């Protein structure tokens, strides 16, 4: 998607066969991954999926049990953090409380044969960059959470590291500040062109910020792809369930390109699955069509609205039908549409499940 990703040549960071054991527990299982120069990559997954463990292995803070990490062509697998090239920002900011903002930012610039004046100039430049000029004399505790996190960011990029690691940097902030800072961090990263890895459990954060997302679960990579790919074509049922909202309905394959859902037969891409195979049919609520549907269309069935849930900009309707049996589909209907069609609970309507939006997963899905 982004230019960076299409950039030819060697990856900047290459992780191969990474495994991390904590006693008998495997926190990372055979992780392999390539990240290119200038890319913004998000590690996304539920808590305990290993995303932070992976980040800490890349930083050398908790070195992996087996496997290699190469950065800019050098094997850094066993190196301690101090001998690697990265800047890091933590959820807790980890600003030194007894030092002024300027001293915090200058911390990594000391002992580098830089003159005091140069350091001061660089600090001012960085504070400017993160939008907090004139705040250098304050102490961290006198700043808001969002401001503190920007200072932590300035401190991390002060030494111009080759790699920027962000460990849930926005999770401790208020919702509004978080959304605002997302854009700031992203545009800063664009401007500096610094290769960045961010760990997050917030899918919205990952979808809006990342060039590529690495979805993880139980110490394994479930899917790597651009935000759009991850959302539109979730590679596994876990990804489909974890990102966005998804209807999961049990079904079985009825010949090539056909699946059954209760008594209903749907046309879709069955991806070479054998006849009679048990599958899970997945479709997003916003992809279900109820407007301008005629009985002659493909994948159409009659349904009743048996529940409506108001969610602000749209309404989530629960659709029941004799043909689908116990399976009920959720459909997101815009407020506009609701007003136009004046849909109410108990109404009957024709529902179309567009073929291109149906995804089929082998077996049954257990999701909480």
């Amino acid at each position, binding site marked *: 998607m982004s230019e960076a990703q299409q950039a030819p040549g060697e990856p900047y960071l290459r992780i191969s066969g990474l495994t991390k054991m904590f006693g008998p527990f495997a926190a990372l299982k055979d992780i392999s991954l390539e990240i290119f120069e200038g890319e913004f990559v998000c590690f996304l997954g539920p808590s305990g999926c290993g995303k932070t463990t992976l980040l800490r292995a890349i930083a050398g803070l908790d070195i992996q049990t087996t496997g290699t990490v190469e950065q800019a062509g050098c094997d850094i697998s066993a*190196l301690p953090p101090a001998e690697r090239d990265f800047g890091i920002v933590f959820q807790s900011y980890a600003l*030194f409380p007894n030092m002024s903002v300027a001293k915090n930012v200058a911390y990594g610039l000391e002992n580098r044969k830089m003159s005091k004046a140069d350091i001061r100039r660089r600090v001012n430049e960085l504070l400017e960059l993160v939008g907090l000029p004139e705040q250098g004399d304050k102490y961290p505790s006198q700043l808001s959470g969002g401001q503190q996190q920007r200072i932590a960011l300035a401190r991390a990029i002060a030494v111009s590291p080759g790699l920027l690691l962000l460990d849930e940097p926005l999770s401790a902030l208020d919702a509004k500040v978080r959304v605002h800072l997302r854009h700031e961090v992203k545009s800063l990263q664009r401007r500096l062109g610094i290769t960045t890895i961010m760990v997050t459990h917030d899918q919205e954060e990952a979808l809006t910020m990342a060039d590529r997302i690495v979805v993880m679960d139980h110490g394994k990579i479930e899917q790597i792809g651009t935000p759009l790919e991850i959302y539109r074509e979730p590679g596994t049922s876990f990804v489909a369930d974890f990102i966005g909202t998804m209807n999961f309905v049990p079904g079985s394959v009825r010949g090539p390109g056909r699946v059954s859902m209760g008594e209903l037969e749907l046309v879709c891409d069955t991806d070479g699955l054998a006849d009679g195979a048990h599958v899970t049919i997945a479709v997003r609520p916003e992809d279900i069509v109820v407007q301008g549907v005629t009985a002659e269309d493909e994948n159409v069935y009659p349904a009743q609205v048996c529940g409506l849930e108001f969610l602000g900009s749209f309404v989530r309707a629960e659709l029941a039908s004799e043909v689908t049996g116990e399976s009920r589909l959720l459909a997101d209907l815009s407020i506009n549409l609701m007003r136009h069609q004046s849909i109410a609970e108990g109404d009957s309507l024709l529902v179309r499940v567009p073929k291109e939006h149906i995804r089929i997963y082998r077996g049954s899905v257990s999701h909480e």
Partner: protein
Amino acid sequence: MSRAAAEVLSAPIVKPKASRDDRMMRAFMGVIGVYLLVSLALPLYVMLSKSLEDHDGAFVGIANYIEYFSTPALAYSINNSLYIATVTTVITVVLAFTFAYALTRSCIPFKGLFKSITMIPILVPSLLPGIALVYLFGNQGLITGLLMGNSIYGPIGIVIAEVFFTLPHAIIIIITSLSIADSRLYEAAISLRASKLRIFFTVTIPGCRYGLISAAFVVFTLAITDFGAPKVIGGDFNVLATDIYKQVIGQQNFEMGAVVSVVLLIPAVLAFMVDRVVQRKQVALLSARAVPLEPQPKRGFDLVMLGYVVLVSIFLIGMLAVCQYAALVKFYPYDLSLGLHNYRFDVMDGGGWDAYYNSIKMALYTAFFGTIVVFSGAYLVEKGRGFRHGRAAFQFLAMMPMAVPGLVLGLAYIFFFNHPDNPLGFLYHTMAILVISTITHFYTVSHLTALTALKQLDAEFEAVASSLKQPFYKTFVRVTVPVCLPAILDISIYLFVNAMTTVSAVIFLYGPDTNLASVAVLNMDDAGDIAPAAAMGMMIFYTAAGVRVLHYFGSRWLERRTQAWRVR
């Protein structure tokens, strides 16, 4: 899982390369670890093996123990010690609970003042309450009649002195456990119409049960291992602690001293283990969402509580006042005129004013070096990277001193440092060994204070610093130490005060040129110079109290100076 495990077997395991920082930290930890080995583990080991040897150093198995338990007089001391410790524990915990309850759950005035008063006993050697009791209830005491013919020399005196001595420790622990109460529990109980008594037994007591258990074990250990009170006021009533002293100093029977030490080690180790378990559970009781309980004024209840608190305070201050009076009276009970006659320590046995100056020197050294050693050690354990087994072993060593009574430690030092083959033998009788033994004796509490402070720091400071390519000692000096300064001051003051007042370990270790004030109190009392002993004891009190006041103002100043960045 099994696939991952197979992966581990097939792929080479990454051996993390230690950075310069890692190697330096390990070296520093090794140095402090060796210090703890030499000052604690090895002496204890030598003492244990000594208890299995005869006079000539031949291994005799448990023969010494058999002899010990078949000597009725010695075995009788076990009963006496258990009796004293049990009675003291019951009385102290009840008194301390009521006191702590008054300070946390009533609206009496001057809570800060009363709390400071309860800290008085920490500032004096445990010999001092004994001396006060001699003047109050001795054969020619001020109010001997109140005892109705009973003698203060024996269990009664010991228990009163031990209650005085152990009260502050119990009060501190119970106040902590009472102040974490969640007012929502009380609101729920009241809304369910539980009676006051029922609320007390179903909410209050369960809420502080770990504090009570912990306090009971601390008091029990202090009482059973204390040597000062039974020495001064015990009379013919022998306990384990005085037995060690008598066996070693009186009869030069070192092997039997070692046997008694091992016996004394058992309750101390047991109490220590129970306390550790209980402490862990107490932490789990703390909930971040708890709403702190604000006591409501209730006139009658508050008055009763005030009366009680005043009574206890009078008891504590009274004991000191009696000592001060005894120190100033010319020749009790024949010449009651006041003067500084008893402060002419130089004309008396016991070490004279030099002993006092030695004590101050020793306390300063202990505070200075002890704080550096303890805080650095705690830092390395808490913030070190990798080297898991090394750090766990160090942590174990740091926790051990808590379970070792001072007398036992002192005796172990004799065996270890006085051994002709020990190259460190030159330390014996020097100031250095007094400082080393005192730092080691009070290591655990200081270590825990340092750990608590370090755990409150952001865990990622070190990670950030190393990503910025700054050495760990720079972060240690510029961030860790300044942020932990209040705790560092607490540790140094704790070490100073305890070095001033301790008798137990140093009693076996001082030399002719290194007499100490607290030891002088003991020796003057032994020689019958009770008034000068009281005078010296009060000198210790004034010094310790003065340093505490300095510490208080120092902390206040520090707080003001750093309030710009301290998060409140």
